[in-house]
């Protein structure tokens, strides 16, 4: 199965991006295009999730998965924080910031996992897109509470700004909004826009992963903030979080594919929404640490190994 995964064009383009960055090629995807692709991918998976839920209806599974996702996003940072301070030797502020990243999720990791799982006949339920959106931001709150614990209360203005960031975050709005559009429009309403959002999807994912490979590997190469402890944690955290996610997903009765998807969500670390929020709310935290860990190590690890591992785990314990 790992061989199958590694020879799919989607993953091969990621590997090409990593390779190009490592040989210091000047290959570059224009930023605006990369951003556009990420918007396209989010709109597309939001729509598809909404349509699937419009077909299947709201089920108890959905509610269970939503609660599990919210809980994971709130609580996983606690574990991460402990490991990051004890083993990683990070200070309170940096550890809180990094922990927030690991509680949140990576949309691209989820999308790639959905593609690979579906290619193996393991299609996660449509509502997992909603779970993805739910898991994006709660970890920001946990991470900040951890980073600021024991410190004098901040001004209200700032924390209201943060709440706004949590709920009005661009990718949350786009995911939830497209999900709602899919729900309202349903399968028939989707038909006319299907050629763009469905047919082109995998090809766009290839080009986007090419760019993510470039960005992740460049970040790793340019990073001056990583040491052996942090590198180990950036691999250990997805392994631990992913195992917890698969276990909980299986325990609450999700189908195998959705349990695998919950595991992959738990294992993934944010590198878009959370870094921006941390830069604003915790400017003292060092972006060199959290971006290098989540984007430079955990993201490639999940794409190349994690997705396969957690789907195998879900098949075993499912």
């Amino acid at each position, binding site marked *: 199965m790992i061989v199958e995964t590694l020879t799919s064009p989607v993953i091969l383009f990621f590997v090409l991006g990593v390779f190009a960055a490592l040989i210091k090629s000047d290959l570059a995807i224009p930023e*605006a295009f990369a951003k556009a692709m990420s918007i396209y991918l989010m709109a597309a998976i939001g729509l598809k999730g909404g349509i699937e839920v419009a077909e299947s209806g709201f089920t108890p599974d959905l509610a269970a998965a939503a609660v599990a996702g919210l809980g994971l996003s709130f609580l996983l940072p606690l574990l991460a924080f402990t490991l990051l301070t004890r083993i990683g030797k990070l200070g309170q502020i940096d550890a809180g910031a990094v922990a927030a990243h690991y509680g949140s999720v990576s949309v691209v990791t989820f999308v790639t996992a959905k593609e690979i799982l579906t290619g193996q006949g393991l299609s996660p339920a449509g509502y997992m897109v909603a779970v993805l959106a739910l898991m994006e931001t709660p970890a920001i709150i946990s991470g900040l509470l951890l980073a600021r614990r024991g410190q004098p209360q901040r001004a209200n203005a700032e924390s209201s700004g943060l709440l706004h960031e949590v709920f009005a975050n661009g990718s949350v709005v786009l995911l939830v909004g497209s999900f709602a559009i899919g729900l309202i429009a349903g399968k028939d309403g989707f038909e006319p826009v299907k050629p763009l959002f469905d047919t082109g999807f995998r090809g766009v994912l290839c080009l986007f992963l090419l760019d993510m490979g470039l960005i992740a590997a460049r970040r790793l190469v*340019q*990073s001056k903030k990583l040491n052996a402890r942090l590198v180990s944690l950036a691999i250990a955290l997805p392994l631990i979080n992913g195992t917890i996610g698969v276990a909980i997903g299986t325990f609450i009765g999700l189908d195998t594919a959705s349990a695998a998807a919950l595991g992959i969500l738990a294992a993934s670390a944010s590198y878009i929404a959370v870094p921006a929020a941390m830069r*604003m709310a915790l400017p003292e935290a060092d972006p*060199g640490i959290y971006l290098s860990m989540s984007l430079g190590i955990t993201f490639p690890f999940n794409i190349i190994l994690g997705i396969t591992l957690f789907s195998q785990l879900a098949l075993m314990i499912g």
Partner: protein
Amino acid sequence: MIETVSRKRIEILVDTPLVPRLIKHARDVDISGWSLIHVDAGGGRDGAWQHDDVTGAAAKTIILMIASEAKAAALVDAIAPLLDSYRLLLTVGDVQVVRGERF
């Protein structure tokens, strides 16, 4: 030649997510306007970086402001404590402007 007056040209290089914070400080000292210029790439104590739109957290912006000497001084005092934690680069230069009463 038309009459000109001296004003300060303030340039702040800052991580893009922090821009709104700094503009709030500028408003607090009553600076009348600002303009944002995108920075493509750079290098400093932490090595080189390039802007990528995907993870916007690494993006940097220059905030350009023209202000009177008094307002410029007030702004510098207000943001000096942030210089380190926000990793700002702040410069103040002299320029001549026409119709300086605006600033």
